[in-house]
């Protein structure tokens, strides 16, 4: 039984970006336990605390605003709960905002369907701004972008174009900053480094793939071209700002 379901927005930056997705559950679980808050557990053979996340963030990629749902046993003051959990979290995980969900609210994985990224990448050779804009426009104009992904079963070709909703690039000194927005779903998605590798290859853009820094700036509930946060969904009880 759960008395309260929390949906929390948090950062996963600095050292915390190296925490693997599978390990993140344990990090939250222990933090909540240290905070002295009783979690709700799954029923059955192997009981686990009810903690669930949205789409996994690749190891090493920073997340400016990620989400987690945690079920707790007793109804408590939201701000107090968030404050107590925050005290127990390792550096790089900062709670930004939280909400109490109604029972029966859809899980994160069911509502999130888009993500945006900011990618900083070094230019291997100098690139003119016009050349960059042209390359991006040409890439976006393609109806199909076949990318060869290496899987355990060998290379498989995949069309990555349908996933990309937005791609913009701007030169800053010796690097380019790309803003990328992609669709995500149960059928998969595209990784930011795949988009850039494809851009480099198909449009002959000299990007240094060894020197790139990826940050996920947000994950969204996207509906008819509008992005909203999973905290702005219907049916919330209270909202706490940190």
């Amino acid at each position: 039984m759960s008395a309260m379901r929390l949906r929390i927005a948090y950062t996963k930056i600095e050292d915390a970006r190296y925490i693997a997705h599978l390990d993140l559950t344990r990090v939250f679980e222990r933090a909540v336990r240290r905070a002295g808050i009783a979690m709700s557990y799954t029923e059955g053979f192997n009981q686990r605390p009810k903690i669930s996340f949205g789409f996994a963030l690749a190891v090493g990629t920073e997340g400016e605003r990620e989400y987690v749902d945690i079920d707790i046993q007793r109804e408590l003051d939201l701000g107090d709960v968030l404050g107590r959990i925050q005290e127990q979290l390792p550096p790089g995980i900062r709670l930004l905002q939280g909400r109490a969900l109604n029972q029966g609210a859809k899980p994160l994985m069911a509502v999130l369907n888009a993500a945006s990224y900011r990618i900083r990448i070094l230019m291997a050779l100098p690139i003119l701004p016009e050349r960059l804009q042209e390359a991006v426009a040409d890439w976006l104009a393609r109806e199909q972008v076949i990318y060869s992904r290496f899987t355990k079963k060998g290379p498989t070709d995949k069309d990555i174009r349908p996933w990309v909703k937005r791609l913009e690039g701007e030169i800053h000194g010796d690097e380019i900053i790309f803003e990328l927005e992609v669709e995500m779903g149960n059928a998969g998605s595209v990784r930011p480094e795949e988009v850039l590798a494809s851009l480099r290859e198909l449009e002959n853009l000299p990007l240094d793939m060894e020197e790139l820094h990826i940050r996920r700036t947000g994950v969204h509930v996207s509906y008819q071209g509008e992005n909203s946060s999973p905290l702005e969904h219907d049916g919330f009880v209270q909202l706490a700002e940190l």
Partner: protein
Amino acid sequence: MSKFTAAEIRRQVERFLPKVLKPSRYLGSEWNAIKKDWANTEVHMAFAFPDVYEVGMSHLGTRILYHLVNSFPEFLCERVFAPWVDMEETMREKEIPLYALESFQPLQAFDVVGFTLQYEMSFTNILNMLDLAGIPLRSEERGPGDPWIIAGGPCAFNPEPLVGFIDFFLLGESEEQLPEVLHLIAEQKLNPLPRRDFLRKVAQVQGVYVPDFYHVTYKPDGRIESIEAEAGVPAVVEKAIVQDLDQAFFPTNPIVPYLEIVHDRMMLEVMRGCSRGCRFCQAGMLYRPVRERSQETLFKQMEELLRSTGYDEVALTSLSSGDYSCIQPVIESILEKHGEEGVGVSLPSLRVDSFDVDLAESVQKTRKSGLTFAPEAGSQRLRDVINKGVTEQNLLEAVEAAFQKGWSTIKLYFMVGLPTETQEDIDGIIDLAKKVANLGTKLGRRNITVTISTSFFVPKPHTPFQWEPQEAKASVDLKQRYLREKLRDRRFKYNYHDVKTSYLEAVFAKGDRRLAPLLEWAVKHGARFDGWGEQFREDIWMDAFKEFGIDPHFYANRVMDYDDILPWEHLESGVTKQFLVSEHHRALQESKTIDCRHEECTGCGICPGRGVQIDLKG
């Protein structure tokens, strides 16, 4: 390489960290990690575990000493582990020196690097880590600007293959000895003495062994002629012992790793030492006498651990926790108090003769994952030889109770190649496995799995079997193949160790300082992580023995005489040679020796004159 600053190392490492396996191994920001101010501490120590993070962080001794040293305001202690091969490759390619996790300071910047010697197969990693740190491997090549390289742990009781690389060794329990050594190092930093004068001073600390002061000569046949100590250092180095375990330092704010480690739970050390007297067991001889912690102390530590870690499982650790005199009340009380919050208890090892099925049930919260027993040998005769004590009846009763309570997976551990072993003893393993499986079938359990694991016996220093040769690789290999054939049944699962690794382990366990240059050569040619099956490079080792004209059989397979001077003759565990000889005799007579905890003293020699005694709390 030593030009790197901590900030520069961090900057460089962060560029490739996302590309290595399990990058959270290489951070120092885990919960409860201690980051002290470098400038405001007198002595900087790097505690080095020569294996990967997940293994090292699971080791209780490492955790105790890390927090102990940091509990002194004047000391700083950080951690370093052996980087996995992918990380090492990148670090070498980018010429990044090995760094300590908390500050990213290169090891070279520390005053002391202390290695723990848990198993012989990690010796190559020690040299490799020094090399990766850009620290000269040989003591004689290091100067006042280099850290002191020290080492402790069970293998320090025969550290001879590491002589020449390590400045001094710490024998025994370090809770009191290590701070004493670090205070001497603090003094040395203020008023430096010449190297040998400092070492002579350190050699006065209980349990400190400075190999430079001990000279070994050899007979023409290769055996040791003499081991002579220089004037002013003890002729025989005696281990350090913690007198009162109940009052001894124990960390209740241990580091909580990000990634899952081998033993990912809270640990409560319920006792130290074991006097069961298994004749193959080195730990049973090295950590005498038995000293227990009181329930009150354990309960207090438990509360603190829960609050500081957030773990939901606690392991009650020791060499044989079922023998702890207050085990029942401790488990009951923990479960009563915290069971509802989902806190479980685990026991790492259970003996069949102290097995209690209700106890086992209470520690297996929800899943009955399998029970492990270690009869060690397949026949009563051989179990008497090794003084394992347990009988077939003990085992079958324990297994029966387990099957009745719903377990269907039983794991049995055995050793192959034990002294006096015959074909009958090997058949005894098969026999026992079948009896266990049949018992399960008879009791109506379906889907029974009996997992049988065999390891290859390695004779260890300071045990009654130290004079015994290891059995030939080829014949043990045949025995294991035979077992594999005979245990082809869907009810059985058979696991066995690679004989090549255990053979090398025997060479180094019984080795002397003539192996040191060979070890260095093997590391230079790529040997590392020898305990990790897929990393073990037998070819390098065989080339190394050839290169130095050293016959590995001389160490692993030679019968040693009681009169032989052993490479560890000058290092004392407290158990007398006389006792070990008598135990060896009794082994060959298939005669058992009792546990001094419950009956009279067996005369092992540990208690008299050391101010220690058996300390039971129940």
